[in-house]
C-alpha cells in the first residue's frame, strides 16, 4: 500500500526534478519496478513495521513473561506505563545520560578529527601507512574493543600502571566500579573507536575542497588560521553535518561498550537508554514497561530524524 502511493509520487518527483531528479531516469513500468523493491520491503516491514505495531500494544499492557501469560493476553493498563516512566528517575537519568554521552563524544570526536585531518593535508613519506594505523580502531569488533578497554581500565590495568609511574606510588583506582568515573572509560572506548571515522570523513572532505579559493587566499596573504576558519570550515560544513548526524544516531544507540564494561552499573550510574531498556526487559522482565519506553524513544528519534532530513533536503 505504501508502495502504491509512493509510485504515484514517483512520476511527479521525476517530472519536477526533485531531490535527486537531476539524473536522468528510465520510464517507469509500475508493476515491474514495484516488484523489485518488494523483497527488501517485505523483509524490512516484517522486522521493523510489525514489531512497531506490537510495541504499541505492549506499551499499553503490563506484560511480564515470568508470569506465564502470553503477550497478546497481557493485562491492559492503558497509559500507566507512561505515567510511571515520567516519574521514573532511572529512565529520566538514562535519557539525560545518553544525551550527555552523545554531546561529549561528538564534540571530542569532531575536534580530534579536525586536528588530525589538518596534519594529513600535505604529502609526506609513510602518510598512507599512518592513515591505515589511525583508522585501525574502527575496524575492530566493538565488543572486542570494549574488552580491551575493560582490561586497560582495570584496577591492575596499564592505565593505572602509567598513572602509578607518573605519581611514583601505587595507584589502583577501580574506574569501572566508581559511580562518578565509570562513564569515562565507556566514552573513551566510544571516542577511541569512532574518531577514525570522523577523521576519514573530514579528510575526504578536505581533499575534495575546491583549490582556487584556498590558493587565492594564500596569495592574498591570509594567515593559515584565517584560511581554515573562513574558507575551509564553511566549505566543510556539509561533510561535518553528515558526520555528526551519522555518528549522533549511532552514539544515541550506544550499547556494546556499556554492556561489556559495566552493564549500566555500579547501580544505574552508567545506564544509557539502550542499557536501561535491556536491563528492564531481560533482567527485571518488565516487558510492557520497556515497550512504553521504546515507543517514546521511537517517536522522538523518528520525529527528530524526519525534521533533520527535511531541513537537509531544503539546504541541498
Amino acid at each position, binding site marked *: 500500500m*505504501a*508502495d502504491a502511493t*509512493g509510485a504515484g*509520487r*514517483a512520476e*511527479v*518527483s521525476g517530472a519536477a526534478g526533485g531531490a*535527486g531528479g537531476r*539524473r*536522468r*531516469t528510465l520510464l*517507469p*513500468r509500475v508493476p515491474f*519496478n*514495484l516488484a*523489485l*523493491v518488494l*523483497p*527488501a520491503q517485505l*523483509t524490512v516491514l516484517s*522486522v*521493523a513495521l*510489525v514489531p512497531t*505495531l506490537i*510495541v504499541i500494544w*505492549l506499551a499499553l499492557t503490563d506484560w511480564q513473561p515470568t508470569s506465564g501469560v502470553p503477550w497478546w493476553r497481557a493485562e491492559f493498563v492503558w497509559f500507566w506505563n507512561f505515567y510511571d516512566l515520567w516519574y521514573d528517575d532511572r529512565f529520566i537519568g538514562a535519557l539525560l545520560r545518553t544525551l550527555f554521552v552523545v554531546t561529549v563524544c561528538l564534540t571530542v570526536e569532531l575536534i580530534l578529527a579536525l586536528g588530525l585531518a589538518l*596534519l594529513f*593535508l*600535505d*604529502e609526506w613519506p609513510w602518510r598512507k601507512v599512518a592513515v591505515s594505523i589511525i583508522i*585501525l580502531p574502527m*575496524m*575492530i*569488533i566493538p*565488543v*572486542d574493543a570494549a*574488552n*580491551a578497554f575493560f582490561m*586497560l581500565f582495570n584496577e*591492575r590495568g*596499564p592505565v593505572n600502571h602509567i598513572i*602509578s609511574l607518573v605519581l611514583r606510588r601505587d595507584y589502583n583506582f577501580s574506574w569501572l566500579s566508581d559511580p562518578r568515573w565509570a562513564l569515562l572509560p565507556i566514552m573513551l572506548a566510544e571516542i577511541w573507536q569512532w574518531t577514525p571515522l570522523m577523521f576519514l570523513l573530514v579528510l575526504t572532505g*578536505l581533499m575534495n575542497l575546491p*583549490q582556487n579559493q584556498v590558493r587565492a587566499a594564500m596569495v592574498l596573504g591570509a594567515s*593559515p588560521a584565517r*584560511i581554515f576558519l573562513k574558507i575551509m570550515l564553511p566549505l566543510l560544513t556539509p561533510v561535518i553535518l*553528515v558526520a555528526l548526524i*551519522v555518528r549522533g544516531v549511532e552514539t544515541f*544507540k550506544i*550499547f556494546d561498550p556499556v*554492556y561489556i564494561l559495566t552493564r549500566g552499573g555500579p547501580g544505574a550510574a552508567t545506564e544509557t537508554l539502550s542499557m536501561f*531498556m*535491556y536491563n528492564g526487559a*531481560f533482567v527485571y522482565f518488565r516487558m510492557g514497561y520497556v515497550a512504553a519506553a*521504546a515507543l517514546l524513544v*521511537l517517536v522522538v*528519534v523518528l520525529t527528530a*530524524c524526519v525534521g533533520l*532530513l527535511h531541513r537537509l*533536503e531544503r539546504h541541498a
Partner: protein
Amino acid sequence: MPDLAAARRRPALTLLKRTAVLVAMAISFFPIFWLFSTSFKPVDEWASWPPVWVSRHPTLQNYRIVFFPEAARTFAEAQKGSLDYKVSGSAWRAFGDSALIATASTALSVLFGTLAAWSIARYRTGGASLPLQFLSVRMFPPIAVVVPIVAMFSVLRLSDTYLGMILAYTAFTLPFSVWMIRSFIEDVPAELEGAAMVHGLGRFRAFLHATMPLIWGGLLATALFIFILNWSEFLFALVLTSGKVITVTLQVANYVSASSGKLYGVQAAMGAISTLPVVLMGYLIQRHLVRGLTFGAVKR
C-alpha cells in the same frame, strides 16, 4: 592539495606535527596491542600488579583453550578452587554459526538491496520517501524493537534459530545495502541501460549487461561491508538467542568465570581471532568505508 601556507617549511612546526601523528598512532594502536599481548599471557600474568606489558613466558594456552575442549577441561581442573572456570559453548560452533548467519544474511541483503536500489535509482520507485523509509530502520535504536521482535519470534518459533537471526540481520543491514548500491548504480549513466534496451534487450538483461559489469567492485565492497557489520553485531545475538545459536561476539562475552570475573587471556585470544578477519576485510574495502558508513552520502 590545499596546504596550510608555508607551515611545512618551518622545521619546529613540522616536528610538532610529526610528534602529534606519532601520538595519535600510538593511541590508536595501544588497546589493540594490549588485546593481542594479553592473549599470549599465561594465567598468572592476566591480572598481576604491576601489569605485564609483554609476557615474559608467552604461551599459546589461551588459543588452545579457545579451540580445543580438552585443553579447556585440563585448564579448568588445574585451576579448580582458585578460579571457578566455566566453558560455555565452543569457539568452533561460534565461528560456524557466525559464518553461516553472516554469509546468508549478507547474500540476502545484497540481493534484495541490489533489486531495490536498481528500482529506486533507475525508476525513482517510491519517490523520495522510500529510500528514507529504508534509512529510518537504521535510525531507531535496535533495543527499541528488540522487545516486540522477541514477542513476535516467540509466536513464530523463530527465537534461537538461524532463520530468525538471518531475518533480523538482513532487515537491519538493508538500509546500508540499498543506499550504498544505489550510490554505485547512480555513478553509472542511465543512458547505458537505455541504449541496451534500444538494442532490444529486456529491462532486466539491460541492467545485467550494461550496468552490472560496471558495479561489480561496488557490490563486492558492499557485501564485505555488510559481512563486517553482521559478524560484529552483538545486541541481537545477545537477545534473540539462548544457547542453540552462538555467534563469535557472544562467545567473546561468554568467557567469564563465576567467581573471579573475566578470563582475560582466553577472552583476549578469542577477541584477537574473531576480529582478525574483519580487520583484513576492512582494509580491503578501505576506499569504500566512508561511503558505506555514511549511506553513500560521502564519496571518495
